[in-house]
């Protein structure tokens, strides 16, 4: 029995979920998580037809789950309903592709320079908007041929971790991946890259539950090999982290043979910031930081950091660097929500949701905006014009390393 089966009747209709929903702040017609989740679920379970296009507008930020005083799994109920939601053919086709970033990455990284040039052309953007419903206002990140998937630290460390790349690091942000490995190496941690593929979260967010289950089922076996040897799994992406910490049991938990394995894997997953903070608390983090030469940096904590129950680990890690001025923006959801902001019909809502964050960045007038989540960074730069980076890169630079992107 899923957790949501147990908690459905706990909904008191207090509307706390609605009050924190980022979409409700931007789209007054959006009925909100209370209605789309527990209210309609009772009808859905009676077999009554209550499908709604509004289900597609849920960002999957899971702020509703955290806000609920009675532990109703509002977001999980909406995700399950999304999986049964019927879409027009073209939207279904687009979402089928967006649900598979690894497949997209594999295809687009065959000839990456050519791909990047074609994707950046105005004509391509207009055509994609008209045919596939990808927002013409958006730019795709640059693609690279995968180069990190066989990485293994050259020298043995005091501890070994299995690093989970995620699709963004595998196909787009390889210099960030290298920075993360080097950062762990600075504290004597040996890194091996996991062969596990996409975490399955994009599939869940796009209502493709079959694909999400396929992804977690494949990854479970791969990650379990490391867990059996007592190795921790570390990821630098908060959405991958959220999925790896809860997606196995939520998607496979009905199968008793897999449930125990799923729980063991989930217990072994760490966000990179969480892992480094753990080292800091044990006095094992290398803190030989050089004084910072940066101006003010603006930090945004992604929604999926809060839903993991983490406490801004990167914000606290960066504050260990002498002279580094980090301002916590605390301005809610960025509105990008992975692939949500790429959809033409959702672009305006995505930007409206992010407007509070853009204003906060403008007020801070920082040299750089920082966040762990790759699509949050994309949105921050798109909405504010301020360049954005992962905090791991700044922490590595604090050891006196050069900017990895130019090295």
């Amino acid at each position: 029995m899923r957790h949501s089966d147990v908690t459905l009747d706990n909904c008191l209709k207090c509307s706390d979920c609605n009050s924190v929903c980022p979409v409700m702040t931007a789209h007054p017609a959006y009925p909100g998580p209370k209605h789309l989740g527990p209210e309609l679920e009772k009808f859905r379970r009676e077999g009554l037809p209550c499908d709604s296009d509004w289900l597609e507008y849920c960002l999957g930020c899971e702020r509703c789950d955290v806000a609920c005083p009675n532990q109703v799994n509002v977001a999980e109920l909406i995700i399950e309903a999304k999986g049964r939601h019927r879409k027009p053919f073209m939207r279904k086709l687009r979402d089928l592709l967006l649900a598979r970033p690894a497949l997209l990455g594999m295809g687009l990284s065959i000839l990456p320079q050519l791909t990047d040039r074609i994707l950046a052309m105005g004509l391509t953007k207009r055509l994609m908007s008209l045919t596939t419903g990808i927002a013409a206002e958006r730019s795709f990140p640059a693609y690279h041929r995968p180069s990190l998937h066989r990485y293994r630290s050259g020298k043995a460390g005091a501890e070994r971790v299995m690093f989970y790349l995620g699709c963004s690091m595998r196909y787009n942000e390889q210099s960030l991946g290298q920075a993360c490995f080097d950062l762990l190496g600075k504290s004597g941690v040996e890194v091996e890259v996991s062969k596990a593929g996409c975490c399955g979260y994009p599939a869940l967010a796009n209502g493709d539950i079959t694909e999400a289950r396929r992804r977690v089922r494949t990854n479970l076996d791969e990650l379990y090999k490391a867990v059996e040897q007592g190795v921790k799994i570390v990821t630098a992406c908060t959405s991958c982290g959220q999925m790896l910490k809860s997606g196995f049991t939520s998607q496979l938990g009905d199968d008793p043979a897999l449930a125990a394995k799923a729980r063991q894997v989930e217990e072994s997953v760490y966000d990179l910031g969480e892992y480094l903070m753990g080292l800091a608390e044990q006095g094992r983090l290398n803190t030989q930081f050089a004084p910072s030469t940066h101006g003010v940096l603006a930090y945004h904590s992604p929604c999926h950091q809060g839903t993991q129950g983490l406490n801004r680990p990167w914000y606290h890690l960066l504050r260990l660097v002498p002279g580094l001025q980090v301002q916590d923006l605390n301005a809610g959801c960025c509105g990008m929500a992975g692939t949500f902001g790429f959809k033409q019909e959702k672009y305006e809502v995505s930007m409206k949701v992010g407007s509070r964050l853009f204003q906060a960045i403008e007020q801070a007038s920082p040299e750089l905006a920082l966040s762990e989540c790759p699509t949050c960074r994309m949105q921050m730069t798109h909405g504010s014009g301020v360049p954005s980076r992962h905090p791991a890169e700044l922490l590595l630079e604090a050891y006196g390393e050069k900017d990895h992107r130019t090295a």
Partner: protein
Amino acid sequence: MSSFDSRFVVERLGQGYVARDIALPQEDGVPHSALNIANRFDRDSAFRRLMAERLRQAAADCDQILLPACLGQHSNHSDLLIFAAEVGKPIGEMTTLPPSVAGLRLNNLLMAHLRRLGVEFVGGYPLAGLEIENGVCHGVSVAVPGRARNISARAVVLATGPHSHDLLPGWSGKADHLLRPLDGQGNVMLKGLTLAGALLAAGNGHAVTSGHAAALSALAQEESHAA
């Protein structure tokens, strides 16, 4: 606006009050609610100016304005002073049916203030247990995704509601004058732990006052321990 009837309120308040309506444009034809006005108030400066102008006209002959609480989920004291200056009258807000925008705002402002001071919040997950060693509570364990997270603390205020006996086996349901849990023999069960809220007695009023008292008690115990 749904959930607020100004005539009903005036009837209850008695003489000296008049009910006035102002018309504000709807978005996408959606009827106004306290929450959607508050969200728009936060987001849209043109809407705030229009609202101030309409209120100024509607209350030209009044000394003060009472509104259903809807002036933003995130507006701070200075935002509200600026708005009142634009309206030209002091403004008060009255709570509506849940969610109360005034309560949400107070919560958001307090949390933002504490976050700036370095306080961290782990919300939305149940308490898995208390970390106890040699009769002293050293922290709590929270059931976050992945694995339970241990949070160590010099003082713990337990306010987990009326169904918390599983967390405190052997607790008599009573507390001493410092709000520390007592066992069946009337002895203090644990050091470093103070109780508050509906766990002690039912009722929201008690929850707030006992929360304050528990915080003071925890602080006093902490200071006496340090001394």
